[in-house]
């Protein structure tokens, strides 16, 4: 791993939190000695047991929280304050409920002082691209889950950040909508030159989308292994299973992940997905 060419670099990052209960505080580590480099233009997925610090790492790249020790570098500079150069899409779509779809799509451009005419024309283009034309003036509560997610996606793409952080973005969606959105995401990304860091708990999703998969150990999170996804591009997310290299790669990934998931978590996962 060339530790100097990454657009995002974590250099020996530790993150501690303090859990406060009645009159007692206990510090614990969420991330332990994480060193990582994400090369520009790549689609990189983070997978690992729940609670291992994946969201924490994304929050640090976005500058929302600071490492306790170590440094996060972004485009050859340490991340100081809020990193407005990245786009951040979370599991909740976080649309502003008091704004219509088009107003939500335009909000980042407003923050960035883009003129109204320019905002409208860009919004129109992106809205059409994900098939939301005709719903511009609906409020978020009048949209379906998939439509809200598309809105959240394009309101970030519209200001063309070079790096997009996505934290389990398709988690709450039904299986069909999920695959459709994965497909749309790949089409929007391919050839764009953008870097995507994508957190998911779904190994198939990680394989279908990524160039590279980073596997985290259980908490406190460390990087256990980094994989190069052996599938060729362009990919057909609807048929990744059919790729001859898929089964062996999936098995290896799952075996490595399984070691990290304690027996308790396994039971939880079985019940959770039941």
């Amino acid at each position: 791993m060339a530790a100097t060419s990454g657009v995002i670099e974590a250099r020996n990052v530790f993150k501690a939190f303090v859990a406060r209960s009645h009159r007692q505080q206990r510090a614990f580590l969420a991330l332990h000695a994480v060193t990582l480099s994400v090369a520009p233009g790549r689609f990189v997925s983070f997978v690992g047991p729940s609670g291992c610090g994946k969201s924490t790492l994304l929050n640090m790249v976005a500058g929302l929280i600071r490492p306790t020790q170590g440094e996060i570098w972004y485009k050859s500079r340490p991340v100081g304050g809020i990193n407005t150069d990245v786009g951040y899409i979370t599991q909740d779509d976080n649309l502003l409920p008091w704004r219509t779809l088009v107003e939500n799509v335009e909000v980042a451009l407003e923050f960035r002082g883009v003129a109204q005419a320019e905002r409208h024309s860009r919004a129109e283009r992106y809205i059409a691209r994900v098939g939301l034309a005709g719903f511009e003036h609906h409020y978020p509560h009048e949209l379906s889950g998939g439509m809200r997610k598309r809105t959240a996606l394009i309101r970030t793409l519209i200001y063309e950040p070079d790096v997009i952080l996505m934290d389990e973005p398709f988690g709450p969606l039904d299986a069909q909508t999920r695959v459709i959105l994965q497909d749309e995401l790949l089409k929007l990304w391919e050839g764009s030159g953008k870097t995507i860091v994508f957190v998911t708990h779904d190994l198939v999703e990680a394989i279908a989308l990524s160039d590279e998969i980073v596997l985290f150990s259980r908490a406190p999170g460390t990087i256990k292994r980094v994989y190069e996804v052996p599938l060729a591009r362009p990919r057909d997310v609807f048929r990744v299973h059919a790729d001859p290299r898929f089964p062996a790669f999936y098995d290896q990934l799952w075996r490595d992940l399984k070691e990290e998931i304690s027996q308790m978590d396994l039971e939880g996962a079985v019940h959770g997905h039941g």
Partner: protein
Amino acid sequence: MATGDLAVERGAARLAAGARLLEDVERDDVVRRRRDRRSTAIGRLLFAAAFFAAWELSSGRIVDQFFVSKPSAIAASWWAMLTKESLLYHLQFTIVEALAGYLIGAVAGLIFGFALARSELVYRIVEPFVVGFYGIPRIALAPLFILWFGIGISSKIAVAAVMVFFIVFINTIAGIRAAPPQLLQVARVMGASEWDLVRKVIFPAATPFIIAALQITVPQAMIGAIVGEFISSNRGVGHLLSRAAGWLDTPGLFAGIFTLLVVVLLMNLGITSLGNHLMRWNPKHHSLKDVP
């Protein structure tokens, strides 16, 4: 080729049938809404009529007319007030006091609320003091304000303003603190400035609280103005009321009270329509009705 045409035709027929159905549903909806509105209006009229009729008939028969008067006497007394005691002249002072107090109290409450709630440290420092001041029965400040501002209009404005201020202030803080932190974080990453956050995220998120406070403080402003006038004044509806009380003029008292009631209702109407406009994004404010 021919079957293709047929399919297109069938598709068109289905579309037309669908459009007709939607038209019917819309027409039914208009009719139903009109009927609902009419029933509400008629229901209200009947309720008022029954209320006043019961009052009129029971007064002097079941309860002593000296204490409860009766609608016909009140109407006569109101007319006398209007024509002989220059009710409108007095009303104008009361309205100005209540309105000015309301605006000053509400704006100050909003400004201080925003200033305070945005800093966690400042908030924690002043919170107990705010709660303490809030605990003062604000009416008890009225004599003090008359001492400070004299018996003119400004002391009543001050009383009305404190009645409004604390409620708006406390609700504003509650509303701001209820803004979802994830929304703020995402907006920050999208490049929002502090002013953007206040204007485009925090304020809208706090509007349900603020609107509620603006609604419940309308009568509070009126209470402040009237109490101020009770204590010392030679003008205003409060003055008319205390004079009527001095003369043991029950119909006069009721006439004054009804006048105030109407004024407060009208002010409330204004605030409610403002609230409905600001809250149009809120699903609770819509009546999304599905169709049987």
